[in-house]
């Protein structure tokens, strides 16, 4: 038994991701070594042969994500793990998976950039790359864990969402979360819900690989299942064959958009602490959220009250909830381990009356609770 169901363990964030993948019934892993994500590939290199499941180290990150797509089309639930420079290389395959609607999980343990940057140090620099890194309009789901336990849980959720929405899901732990060790209490095995693969039940001759449905999400056959179909990165009709006809192109692009935008209630996941009755709110995610909670405690001792707002699902951005909950505030402080990425989304969803203030750190170190306290004291 690889996952210590029901037990409490001291483990690393990357280890929790690997165990989460096993818990979610991963059936294929392909990857390329890169700091600070490598432990995920290393641990799965041990686990996968024990489970009799395929694991491979490919020649680069482009090959890794390409292999993932191939494997999932052959029916195997797939995951890869990488970091900034590798994530850049994977954008080609990520776009293909969005277009061909292939479920997969891409873990990007974020390190400092641009380029080789500070390979062993933390950052949240890939927030916008996760959203817009691949060319063209496309749907994106991205989740940012804030603890080792969440690395386990959100990896399972990432697999589930990818199967449910037939689209790639990006897990975005920052390096601190990936390398931190914390106590994790594993749930009972039967309490974990695994979303089954969305297999079709129609006769072979009726099968359309992108069958229009009210939910915009189509059942998906695998190669070798008797349903023969064509998959391409070219814009395609409901059967998967290339098309340039306007109604078919529009239908495809609308469906790609709507399969996310019409299910925001299922995707949105936010945490709020004292947001409602605070005039000042800190908007934070990942490791920075932990600092924000600590800052909230420090400020309580100074008899200052702040709220903390955290998106767990980063993409799609929780537009409506941010507008509802933050648009009446005096100040929203957005500390990020970058030079300002998600802050633009907060600004977009709040009126000019709200002062949206950045707090940046890009030297590869964490944003401390004291830094957040100091920023809050300046505006309070």
């Amino acid at each position: 038994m690889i996952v210590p169901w029901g037990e409490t363990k001291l483990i690393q964030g990357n280890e929790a991701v690997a165990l989460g993948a096993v818990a979610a019934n991963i059936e294929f892993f392909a990857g390329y070594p890169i700091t600070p994500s490598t432990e995920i590939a290393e641990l799965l290199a041990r686990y996968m042969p024990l489970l009799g499941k395929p694991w491979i180290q490919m020649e680069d990150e482009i090959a890794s994500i390409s292999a993932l797509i191939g494997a999932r089309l052959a029916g195997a639930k797939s995951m890869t793990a990488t970091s900034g420079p590798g994530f850049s290389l994977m954008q080609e395959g990520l776009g293909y998976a969005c277009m061909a609607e292939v479920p997969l999980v891409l873990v990007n343990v974020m390190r400092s950039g641009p380029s080789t940057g500070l390979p062993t140090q933390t950052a949240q620099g890939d927030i916008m790359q996760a959203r817009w890194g691949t060319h063209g309009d496309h749907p994106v789901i991205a989740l940012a864990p804030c603890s080792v336990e969440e690395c386990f849980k959100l990896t399972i959720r990432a697999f589930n969402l990818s199967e449910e929405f037939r689209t790639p899901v990006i897990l975005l732990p920052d390096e601190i979360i990936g390398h931190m060790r914390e106590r994790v209490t594993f749930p009972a095995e039967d309490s974990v819900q695994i979303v089954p693969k969305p297999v079709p039940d129609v006769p072979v001759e009726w099968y359309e690989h992108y069958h229009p449905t009210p939910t915009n999400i189509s059942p998906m056959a695998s190669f070798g299942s008797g349903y023969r179909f064509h998959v391409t990165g070219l814009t395609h009709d409901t059967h998967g064959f290339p098309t340039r006809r306007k109604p078919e192109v529009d239908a495809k692009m609308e469906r790609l958009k709507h399969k996310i935008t019409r299910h925001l209630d299922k995707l949105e996941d936010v945490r709020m602490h004292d947001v409602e009755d605070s005039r000042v709110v800190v908007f934070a995610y990942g490791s920075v959220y932990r600092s924000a909670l600590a800052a909230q405690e420090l400020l309580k001792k100074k008899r200052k009250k702040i709220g903390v707002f955290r998106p767990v699902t980063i993409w799609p951005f929780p537009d409506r909830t941010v507008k509802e909950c933050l648009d009446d505030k005096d100040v929203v402080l957005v500390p990020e381990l970058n030079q300002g990425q998600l802050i633009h989304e907060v600004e977009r969803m709040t009126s000019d009356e709200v002062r949206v203030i950045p707090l940046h750190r890009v030297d590869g170190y964490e944003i401390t609770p004291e830094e957040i306290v100091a920023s809050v004291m300046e505006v309070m």
Partner: protein
Amino acid sequence: MPKPLPYEYKYLRSSKRFPHVWCPGCGIGIVMGSIIRAIDALRWKKDDIVMVSGIGCTSRMPVYVDFNTLHTTHGRALAFGTGVKMGNPDLKVMAVMGDGDSLAIGGNHIIHAARRNMDITAIIVNNNNYGMTGGQFSPTTPIDAKTATTPYGMIEPSFDICELMKGAGANFVARGTVYHIIELDSLLKQAFDRKGFSVVEVLAPCPTNFGRANRLGGPVEMMKLLKDNTITQGQAAKMDPDKVEGKTLRGIFVDRNIGSYMERYNALCASVEEAAGGMQ
């Protein structure tokens, strides 16, 4: 125009996807016919076959055949194919690629697929240039040849695909042409039948781009060049070495049976599972 044989029809998406995109005189359709005849001879089931491709003229082939078909990104056919094979080892995976697709942008993937001896049949249609984008030079464009991006002549040496694949570790390496069609059917059949990584390079004309730029004539003249400029290894052995100079060799260059990747991975899984079982 010759009609396809009745049994060839059953492998085509004939009612839906035709006419095809290839130019008059292109060799790719001939390779497709040869692939179909080889598969029919092997009695493979359509449900079990996956044809993967990258980007380019050759890579448009999967849309026309009634297998499980996967048209991927430029150069990545073998990376996608590796995932398909590992995801479901019961599937028979072939990759159809052009010379630019497989050797330039996909060069890294093909040497590693060969080194691993991954269980895939790679079919490389070599027409010496990038046809789809208008005839730019590729890693197999001959020295001095004119293309859209070598207006003054090619200065880079070419890859010898078969030598490259032999050195990289492929189990089976062969070269044929779209003129010597019976021979090509046979080479493809043998390649499909091998475990591990097998490669068949198929020389084919591109009259629209390469032929026009180099004044090689039309489709017929270019076919004649394949006939006149290539010889089998058996013919070469009997010929005066001076006459062999400048000719391209056809036939099988490598046929060995070093363990395929899937054989080795399955053995690994069996051994670690056994070791883990023993510890309990």
